[in-house]
């Protein structure tokens, strides 16, 4: 894929814990094209945030490459990395804990401008702050307010304004709406779609909510226990999920029209521990279709059709089974 803005290759991040090595992400590959939104879904603890953070080097990756316009981000010197941060930004999940409670709105939004010495003069900086606030729909009168005085939706707008103040090209959205009420959630989702259109942004949209991801994404990657199990355009995943985990995930989502659901798969058991995982397919313990090979050999993510990737030894066999 030549037009990729960001390419992640074999990215791994392991944490040392008392019980052993925790494989938070274990060899993740994907590419994001310029101007698109890649959705990253998966259940709690599967490594979504770690992926987002490793890309931005908020966690140093244990191994692997992150190519941004062909340049390996993981090898940049601190000074070059600092410059790179202006182009790659992040919006955090929790608008309550991701804003320093002691700073007023103006300072919060100006912070990235200041650290990056974007403007030499204060008036220009103030102008930029005002412009970004308008962009994300924050009333100008809130400029001296403190985060605790605002509701979740406005706080999340501050988080977005901060990220956008330095005019990035790529933004990691780490569950930007999960902490918000449905109505506010809809407001923020619409805002982000609008900003993408206006500013030509590229998003990595992380969420555990498949409905939200489907709504915003061009392509979707499904993650399970540190690995991507399926990646394709947003329609195919919903019409014809290939990986058994994706199928289960889809059928587990409560929908307002349950009668339209084809079948309801209820997975047995829990997500296994990411500490020193056993070899083989990570999902095989809960998989309805598992065979011997699954426990022995780790399936790799491979292309199985135009732009469709799946990590399953027997995905095509599954298709047949269903066809019958």
């Amino acid at each position, binding site marked *: 894929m030549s037009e990729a803005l960001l390419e992640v290759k074999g990215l791994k991040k392991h944490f040392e814990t008392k019980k052993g090595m925790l494989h938070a992400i274990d060899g993740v590959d994907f590419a994001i094209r310029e101007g698109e939104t890649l959705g990253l879904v998966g259940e709690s603890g599967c490594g979504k945030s770690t992926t987002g953070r490793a890309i931005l080097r908020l966690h140093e990756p244990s191994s692997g490459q992150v190519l941004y316009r062909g340049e390996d981000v993981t090898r940049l010197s601190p000074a070059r990395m600092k410059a790179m941060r202006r182009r790659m930004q992040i919006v955090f999940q929790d608008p309550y804990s991701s804003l320093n409670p002691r700073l007023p709105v103006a300072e919060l939004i100006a912070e990235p401008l200041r650290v990056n010495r974007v403007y030499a003069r204060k008036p220009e900086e103030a102008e930029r702050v005002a412009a970004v606030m308008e962009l994300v729909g924050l009333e100008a009168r809130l400029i001296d307010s403190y985060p605790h005085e605002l509701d979740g*939706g406005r706080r999340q707008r501050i988080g977005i304004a901060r990220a956008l103040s330095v005019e990035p090209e790529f933004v990691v959205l780490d569950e930007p709406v999960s902490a918000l*009420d449905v109505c506010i959630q809809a407001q923020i989702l619409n805002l982000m779609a609008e900003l993408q259109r206006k500013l030509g942004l590229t998003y990595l949209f992380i969420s555990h909510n498949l409905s939200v991801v489907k*709504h915003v994404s061009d392509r979707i990657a499904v993650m399970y226990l540190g690995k991507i199990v399926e990646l394709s355009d947003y329609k195919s995943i919903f019409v014809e999920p290939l990986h058994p985990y994706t199928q289960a995930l889809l059928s*587990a989502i409560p929908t*307002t029209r349950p009668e*339209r659901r084809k079948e309801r798969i209820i997975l047995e058991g829990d997500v296994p521990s990411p500490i020193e995982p056993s070899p083989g397919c990570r999902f095989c313990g809960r998989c309805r279709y598992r065979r011997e090979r699954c426990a022995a050999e780790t399936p790799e993510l491979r292309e199985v059709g135009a732009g469709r990737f799946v990590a399953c030894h027997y995905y095509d066999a599954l298709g047949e089974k269903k066809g019958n």
Partner: protein
Amino acid sequence: MSETTMLLDIRGLTVRYGTQGGEVRAVEGLDLSLARGETLGFVGETGAGKTTTALAVMRLVPEPAGRICGGEVIFEGEDLLKKSPRDMRSIRGSKISMIFQDPMTSLDPVKTVGEQIAEMIGLHESVSRREALAKAQAMLETVGIRAERSGDYPHQFSGGMKQRVVIAIALACNPALVIADEPTTALDVTIQAQVLDLMRKLKDRYRTSMILITHDLGVVAETCDKAAIMYAGNIVEYADKASLFARPSHPYTQGLFGSVPDIESDAESLNVISGLTPDPTDLPPGCPFHPRCPRAEGACSTQAPPKVEIEEGHFVRCFLHGSGGRAR
């Protein structure tokens, strides 16, 4: 309504909290009824007063900040608000029990799960400790946890299993009514599916009535018989699930449906309800939704809208559906 006598009938319930910023009108004249064996989905935004309503039914509204100012909560023909604290204690857990949102904090970390279930049984039934423990193990099996794990501590379980234990505790004395306050919000989707499935099965098996508080219309669609939509301390729409989903009639309900990205739909942009939930210390006069309502008109800002039955068992609190009013 119908010939079945109601298990729970709430009439004009009003609950207020005294705070520094003023009096919070958390629940204002709420009416709600629930028949035996029925499951009611209770939906609304943060701060709508869902938890407060549930706490009021349990008579657990935190004193002295919170006060039940009026109304009746008729349960099995008797007004719970008139019961003595002592009678209430024996009702809680045995006839009405509650499941809280966060399974991590509603279990005691230093007692084994078996003991915790047995404790609930011992409190309401005259059984020996040994019998209680045996019953606790049976209960664990019912919720799909092997009995030999009854000696384990909560931290040894995963989130979904802990919530199963909480459910086991709630169902231990076979209550007539279970109030579940967002029982699956803290869980992952696949685990949520497991837990909801379990709750559905248990409810059918024991014919327990249930009030299921949730943010998620999908959960209502999949588990409930009836649904009540709550906004700023009152129920704005109450109907059969089928009727509600086929014909959401209050502008707020419609907005809520429009705001949720649904996996089954392909809408480009979401229909947003503009504005914020009102400040509960300073509710707008008239219909509390009118400042955000796209179809508000004169009367909305001055008079409280009446409760209208637009079809059998489908109630809406809105002028749009007034007597002879323009249905949409």
